[in-house]
């Protein structure tokens, strides 16, 4: 049946799971005659190689997919009969293979299942519209009459969004419908039946009056400052915290050896914080972005460290971060002395404005009460804050020279680095912490 009408040659489905095939050879050229069921081309799929018979008799007027090309099942490969090049439809589509995207069915069947009938929302005779369970629950929680909420759902039903918006904004200003001024003639109606006066939803603009049992105190300037500073930091930086466990055996030994000398000769206590600070300042030399700042479109690094030390004021009245300037030039004694000096002056309120400015990196030590981990907030505009925590004895796996594992009791401190991921990446922070640990664990006592 030679045909005047065009018949498409398409990539056949050669197996249940085959989705594409490659044309290995056309057996006819454009313009050649072909009989129905005569081999027309050869294809290769990942399951079989096979010949494709011609779907009709006529002239092969057009070859749309060339040898060597791979196309999806169902793609038009050529055309038998009809006018050559007439419609020239759908050039072979570029292979749509984005990762894990569903295949788009070219011609989805019309929805077979009957649409669920619209719910009988027109129960709304009288004043009672259908109230869904969630709307009923929210209405009860906020003491709202759902009939007072403008509904946007099917048949005017109040949706969850409607009632949530109502709770948030309060009733619309457009006249709460006929606030039922209770007719004076029914004073004796039992209260449970009386039309409940609608309680004002939580939209009162002024601060609520204190409830019994609540105490109210004004926000101090420092608390306000801290609040603003903390909030701004979280809004500015992309906070990420990494933690590392450090074996303090050598630091404990070094401190025991130095303590007496420091106390008697200089009146300074070599605290663990001082050791960590000394090691951190040393490590920062290799990690300039931890001691850096994002300033507008630029990144600013330094060849110095102004080390902030977070100090709690007496009675939990606040927190202040005085700064040890040029800490990179101080040895352990210098840093220990600096910390002691700042802490004392902070508690005695003798810090100067200069003392709390210009920090480039901060250490906070919330471990004094035994906490072993935390996620501090970065002191803006710095890029990182180091947290030190309680030093605790832990069972610790150690490996001897011959590779045998044993459990020993070791003083371990969890040390965290909270960093601004805009500027510092996790691997960079991890290397910083690794080097810091290495410094602390191999403390040689001379620093």
């Amino acid at each position, binding site marked *: 049946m030679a045909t005047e009408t065009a018949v498409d040659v398409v990539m056949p489905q050669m197996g249940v799971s085959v989705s594409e095939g490659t044309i290995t050879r056309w057996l006819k050229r454009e313009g050649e005659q072909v009989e129905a069921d005569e081999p027309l081309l050869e294809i290769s799929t990942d399951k079989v190689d096979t010949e494709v018979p011609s779907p009709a008799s006529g002239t092969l007027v057009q070859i749309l997919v060339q040898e060597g090309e791979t196309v999806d099942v169902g793609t038009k490969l050529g055309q038998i009969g009809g006018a050559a090049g007439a419609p020239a439809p759908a050039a072979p589509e570029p292979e749509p293979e984005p990762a*894990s995207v569903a295949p788009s069915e070219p011609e989805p069947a019309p929805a077979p299942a009957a649409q669920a009938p619209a719910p009988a929302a027109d129960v709304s005779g009288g004043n009672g519209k259908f109230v869904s369970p969630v709307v009923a629950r929210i209405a009860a929680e906020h003491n709202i009459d759902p009939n007072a909420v403008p509904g946007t759902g099917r048949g005017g039903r109040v949706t969850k969004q409607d009632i949530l918006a109502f709770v948030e904004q309060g009733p619309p200003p457009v006249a709460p419908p006929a606030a039922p001024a209770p007719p004076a003639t029914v004073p004796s109606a039992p209260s449970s039946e009386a039309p409940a006066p609608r309680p004002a939803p939580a939209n009162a603009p002024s601060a609520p009056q204190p409830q019994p049992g609540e105490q109210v105190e004004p926000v101090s300037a420092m608390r306000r400052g801290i609040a603003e500073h903390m909030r701004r930091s979280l809004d500015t930086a992309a906070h990420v915290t990494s933690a590392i466990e450090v074996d303090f055996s050598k630091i404990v030994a070094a401190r025991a050896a130095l303590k007496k000398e420091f106390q008697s000769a200089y009146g300074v206590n070599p605290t663990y914080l001082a050791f960590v600070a000394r090691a951190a300042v040393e490590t920062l030399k290799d990690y300039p972005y931890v001691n850096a700042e994002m300033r507008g479109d630029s990144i600013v690094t330094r060849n110095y460290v102004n080390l902030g030390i977070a100090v709690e004021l007496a009675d939990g009245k606040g927190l202040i971060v005085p700064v040890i300037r040029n800490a990179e030039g101080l040895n352990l004694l210098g840093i220990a002395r600096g910390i002691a000096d700042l802490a004392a002056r902070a508690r005695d309120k003798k810090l100067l404005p200069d003392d709390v400015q210009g920090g480039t990196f901060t250490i906070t030590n919330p471990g004094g009460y035994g906490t072993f981990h935390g996620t501090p907030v970065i002191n803006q505009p710095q890029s990182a804050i180091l947290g030190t925590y309680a030093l605790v004895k832990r069972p610790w796996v150690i490996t001897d020279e011959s590779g045998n594992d044993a459990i020993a009791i070791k003083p371990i401190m969890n040390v965290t680095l909270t960093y601004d991921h805009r500027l510092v990446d996790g691997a960079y922070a991890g290397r910083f912490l690794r080097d810091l640990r290495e410094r602390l664990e191999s403390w040689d006592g001379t620093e």
Partner: protein
Amino acid sequence: MAELTYLQAISDGLRTEMRRDKRVFLIGEDVGVYGGAFKVSLGFQEEFGPWRVIDAPLAETAIIGACTGASMMGLRPVAEMQFADFISCAWDQLVTVAAKQRWRAGTPVPIVVRLPSGGGFSGGPFHSQNPESSFAHIPGLKCVCPATPEDAKGLLISAIEDPNPVLFFEHKHLYRRIKGEVPEERYTVPIGKARTHRIGKDISVITWGAMVFTAEEAAQQLENDGVSVEVLDLRSVMPWDKAAVLDSVRKTSKALVLHEDTRTGGFGAEIAATIAEEAFEDLDAPVKRIAAPDTPVPFSPPLEKAFIPQVDDVVAGLRDLAGY
């Protein structure tokens, strides 16, 4: 990470475990010399030898029986049913023996049954079914239905590790159509944990297998209507992640349960019932189900298209819920 097809990811997971653990072996019809009907185990017999990649006779009862016995003797069998449909032949071994052995005698039966399932290619009534709900109903069996290559590998490894019989439903429609990044190293995806495929706030679609991608396409269309649809990929239907489903529904207050299996008694019914029981006060619309009608799977392509839920069906269902 390499980009693998869903099928390659399954092969990769199986190969990883067979290389790692000599107790793991594969048995099934044509899995050896031929490499499996879908070529999941292509090259396996060359690598692992005929004693670990066993060509079984055409007898599913014998395959599952052999696996059950081998697992009780300490091995970790993986059986391939050439098509999930054929598992019905092994019903007794699987449901009466394997599923109950641990309860009866305390002996674990760590077998995995790989089940190429699902339609969409005119395979007809014997080669297209999704029988997961039949087995989810049997206490003692676990059923997983991964949708992505990454989950396919991770869940297969979890299934092999698991001390219980696990039915691994691998969707044939996804075999070569879905590609994705798959970690090269060994990893597991926990059985019984859902995955949020798409985050949304207005309607939750709870689904699994190939329907995850149907739901995703429908969700994209709803985005143009200003409706934000969450797609939860259950990944396992037994045990199933009730907490994740309830969390999502409590957030959106509207739920559409979608599966390719037939409607009545399909696993979606269990999910819908649970939502109604446990999240009733969070619902803002009836729980909706979209599933195949209660007939065998038709051969005819137009009929099969009418049978398997299509993107348009899901779009219509979502619009109905959005407008409720």
